[in-house]
């Protein structure tokens, strides 16, 4: 397990977190290369099914990056995503599944450091959790 490298699927909002990730890069901030970012137009466009799909296909974690509350480019997408993620986490918990593999963070375009820190934190959290158990089950 020592060399387990978690795979994180990231859904990053074009207007904030994606730019924040860019800034982290151009500022040469070091962070683990475990995230596979997908650029989306708004965190509010990330339906739970996408997240579930990633988890069921064996992603060790899913990271959603959106604008800080109040700063959504489309006014309220992040607020709605916050509810959606709350629902998803509640469903996972009710079914005895780990909801700690889904993270949402608010990261603005100027917060390169916050983005890098978030990915570092999530990577070490997932390393502690170990690989997503779904890959054990062919019948899933």
């Amino acid at each position, binding site marked *: 397990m020592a060399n387990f490298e978690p795979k994180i699927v990231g859904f990053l909002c074009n207007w904030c977190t994606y730019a924040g990730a860019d800034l982290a890069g151009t500022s040469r901030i070091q962070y683990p290369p475990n995230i596979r970012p997908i650029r989306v137009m708004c965190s509010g466009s990330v*339906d*739970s*099914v996408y997240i*579930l*799909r990633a988890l*069921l*296909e*064996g992603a060790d974690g899913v990271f959603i990056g959106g604008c800080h*509350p*109040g700063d959504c480019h489309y006014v*309220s997408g992040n*607020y*709605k995503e*916050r*509810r*959606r*993620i*709350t*629902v*998803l*986490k*509640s*469903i996972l*918990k*009710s*079914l*005895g*599944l*780990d909801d*700690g593999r889904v*993270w*949402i*963070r*608010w990261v603005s375009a100027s917060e390169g450091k916050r983005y890098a820190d978030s990915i570092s934190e*999530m990577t070490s959290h997932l390393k502690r959790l170990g690989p997503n*158990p*779904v*890959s054990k*089950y*062919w*019948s*899933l």
Partner: protein
Amino acid sequence: MKKEVVIEVKDARVKEAINSFLESLLEKNLVSALLVPREVPSKDNVVQSLMTNSNGLKEVNVISPVLPVSSARIISEMTRLSSYKNPVGVVLRSCEIRALIELVKLKQASLDNLLIIGVDCLGTYSVSDYQNLCKQGNSPSDELLRKFKEGGEDTKLRKACQVCEYPIPSNADLVIGLIGVDFEKNILLKSGTEKGEKILENFSFLPVRACTQTGPEFNQSKREESVSKYLSKKIEKRDALFSEMKEETSGGWENLLSVFSTCINCHNCMRVCPLCYCRECFFESPTFEFGSEKYLLWAKRKGSIKMPRDTILFHLGRMSHMATSCVGCGLCEQACPSNIPLLKIFKMVSYKVQQIFKYVPGRDLEEPLPLTTFKEDELRSVGEE
């Protein structure tokens, strides 16, 4: 002012007493049609029928303990494109009204010119149990009323009904009350809205108020007491079901896989669910059509994959889309050819979700659907993982 009156029942013929009220609604032109449960000619099922005159009213049975399809779906089908111009009476159970309210919020149905007549629900049998009872020569309605009167638990009822905490209709224009009522002598008829009140003005039923002094016996406080006793029994059973479920899910993925191991991905559960309103289900869209190589790729990754694919994704995804509005009707479970305990799963998961937002589906037309709204100052811990 709420109006409460009693309908007199002759010779303990409950069904007939209700039917004569329905008949006068048509005869007095208070409604131009009725959507009512009616026995099919083979007498072994009861289906909703849209009646424009009282021919066949003898076969109408609004207390029949069977629910093949939720009328919420039917009303959505009838009113989605255009609402009624003249009053149409619809006789519904609580779960159907609650689902209908959700569908109206989802803009899938219109209440315009509908006169909602709710009936206290004593529970329903599965379609096949109902049919078997009929084949044995019994009248399921009479049997249910008898058992209810005796106060015994009817473990043959569908699980959804055994644990239903909303047997009394809310948001109805008129309510036909049976629980806590000596229905072999009198039935309660109550207005819930102004519209319902106006309807009652056309009848000369005895007001409940008058009953205590003269004429037929009717005890209002007895009804309230029985109703609350009945409800607490149901809630107890619901909580027992939830703790059963909690134990069963402690196994995580493994448990989930075993619960759904017999799922054939037929999507019946979605098709009958009154809340699954999408014209085209995402899970039946081209998103889920893949080329041959894709399957090989997936199989290579795990060594092998189960076919058909994506059954668990379907169930989890469906939950994530409709758990905020699930009314616990259990029709998903009734329609499942593989006997998967869907009610237990969906009701528990949905209850937890609804609690977060203090939302009760079907409670109030004005209450926005949880996933269409938000508060700025809420759920602060989300985003702080």
